């Protein structure tokens, strides 16, 4: 076991993958000399040089588009989008090109690239640097979507993403980079596409992913003090989605809530809640509660920012009300 941060685990995954596979290149703004806006690629340029740690101009559509072309012609690029909010710039290359190329071209070729980016609140970064846009990705067939919540998953999911034949959007959470955990990265990981049950209880199912897992775990701890035992499911990947694990737990327990940082309406929480309702209807004792971001842009004010996304207190309170209905 070693103590490691989420940031270091990501960096180690990139470093090891690049050492093993010459075709992996990193393409993005400030990824080389600067070392990444959040320091994830720090010093990798010393090992791999500017030919593989490719600093780009500020051209987000171009970064993704170049990665698409490189992936089609034999490289395995890691494109980095400094903030997921910049998807507004890059969405054509991601959703209309990367996601659809295999299908449009009748299966002739895939786009084995990883788009690394980070999202979420926590730094008073404002409305254009704090969003949780995973719903956009999940809504686009052809894109795999990984959202690690733990240090070990930051490593394992990124390593696995770099072996896949299709484009993977890999969304980190900006508030997790400094999170430190004791990990043994050589221990076997859960398979790609399999959700993790982080805590087991018989009273309530909490389905979540990314940073909200931390809040959910803390809330579950507080609920336990009040006699409510929650099962907490960390989805790890949203595409593929391990609905079997959700179904098994919801059918066993009968009460479920979904916790996401992205905004409520037509988001990931909406999809998960509706699937649970549709597929586990006979087993549900309560409506499935969506605990998600408010339908507002993220404000800079730390108070407004924190209040606009789910937190420990809200998750705990909703959990308690669901159980004591």
């Amino acid at each position, binding site marked *: 076991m070693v103590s490691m941060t989420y940031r270091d685990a990501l960096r180690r995954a990139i470093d090891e993958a690049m050492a093993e596979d010459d075709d992996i290149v990193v393409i993005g703004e400030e990824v080389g000399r600067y070392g990444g806006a959040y320091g994830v690629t720090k010093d990798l340029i010393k090992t791999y040089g500017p030919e593989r740690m490719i600093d780009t101009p500020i051209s987000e559509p*171009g970064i993704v588009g170049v990665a698409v072309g490189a992936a089609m012609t034999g*490289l395995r690029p890691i494109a980095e989008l400094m903030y997921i909010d910049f998807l507004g710039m890059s969405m054509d290359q991601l959703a209309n090109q990367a996601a659809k190329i295999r299908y449009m*071209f*009748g299966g*002739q070729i895939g786009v084995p690239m990883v788009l690394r980016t980070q999202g979420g609140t926590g730094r008073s970064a404002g409305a254009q640097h704090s969003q949780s846009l995973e719903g956009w990705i999940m809504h686009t067939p052809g894109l795999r979507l990984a959202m690690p919540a733990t240090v070990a998953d930051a490593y394992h999911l990124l390593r696995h993403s770099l072996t896949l034949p299709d484009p993977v959007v890999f969304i980190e959470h900006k508030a997790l980079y400094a999170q430190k955990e004791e990990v043994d990265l050589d221990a076997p990981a859960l398979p790609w596409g399999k959700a993790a049950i982080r805590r087991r209880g018989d009273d309530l199912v909490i389905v979540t992913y990314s940073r909200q897992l931390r809040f959910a775990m803390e809330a579950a701890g507080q609920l336990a003090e009040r006699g409510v035992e929650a099962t907490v499911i960390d989805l790890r990947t949203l595409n593929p989605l391990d609905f079997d694990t959700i179904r098994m737990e919801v059918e066993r327990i009968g009460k479920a809530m979904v916790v996401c940082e992205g905004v409520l309406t037509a988001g990931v929480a909406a999809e998960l809640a509706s699937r649970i309702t549709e597929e586990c209807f006979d087993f549900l004792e309560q409506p499935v509660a969506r605990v998600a971001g408010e339908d507002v842009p993220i404000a800079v004010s730390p108070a407004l920012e924190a209040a606009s996304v789910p937190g420990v207190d809200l998750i705990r309170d909703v959990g308690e009300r669901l159980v004591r209905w």
Partner: protein
Amino acid sequence: MSLKHTADSGATTPMGGSGQAPKDHNSALPDLYRTMRRIRSFEERVGELFVRGESAGSMLHLSIGEEAAAAGICAVMKLQDTFTTHHRGHGIFLARGAEPRRMMAEIAGKMDGYCHGKGGSMHIADMQLGHLGANAIVGGGIPAVVGAGLSAKRKKRDSVSVAFFGDGAMQQGILYESMNMAALWDLPVVFVCINNQYGMGTRIDQATRATNLHERALAFGLNGHSVDGLDVEEVRNRARSIVDEARGGRPGFLAVSCYRFYGHARMDKSPYRSEEEEIEGRKKDPVKFARDRLISEKLAGENALGTLDGEIGKEMDDAIDFAVSAQAPSLGSMFRDVYAEGEPEPEPLKIRLDRVLARN
């Protein structure tokens, strides 16, 4: 003659098929003419396929009037080169060696098409021929050639990647990001703007003040030029130096000026331009120009050309027959190729619903 030879270069293959084919091996014009004639005839048959109700939809964009750009530039590309095209890319793909039958079948949305009916006219592609894909987003396919150039440079492949697009894409930001990166990184990449004067119904001078298009490329440090698209030999000659220099690491840009003879797509009768303008524009006919020159320079006789044209017509008729009789893709194929083979596939809605509703 083999189609691959058409893709390779006009220099090595004599005009094929007819016993009366011209024999002057010093001129590339016969081959260039043949390529252009095949494009013209193919596009005419695409129009026919639509009129017969056998095409998949009406979003078919013909490159009639633009043949010299496709033929001239493709003639100087090599087999290992890659390219992307815009939505008006039939001619380019043909000039790179595509089989008309499989193209027409794709345009008809059939299983035997290049993309098994999933791509159609605007998303046709073939990795064997280096076609990284046609694109229905204006400018959408441009940055991919920068990525391909990056791969070629890193893997020392000696291949050039060419982005073909229309004048409409000259007003899209992605072009400038792509040109900038290609120049910054000295990539073997060429940007080709086929300026047919119209982005849908908007004439180039209604879309920009800066109509000397290659000047924009110069501003980014590219090897930028413009050429008239009437004379295919002139296009080819200009393209040769640009593509050769790109192969050496100096990316280039070429704007080819021509006139879109017909509407934007099959339903467009061009109400936004006058009949006089169209009559004048269609005088700029690269196929006729090359044909007249073949005769005036005694590179081919009227009879030989008539025979050739007839043979090409038959080839394209056959492509229509093939497309019409080809099978539609099976409905089950809908769920294939969203992800790679062996990867988890989307669950069909009906299976989901059966499962959900069976519970109650």
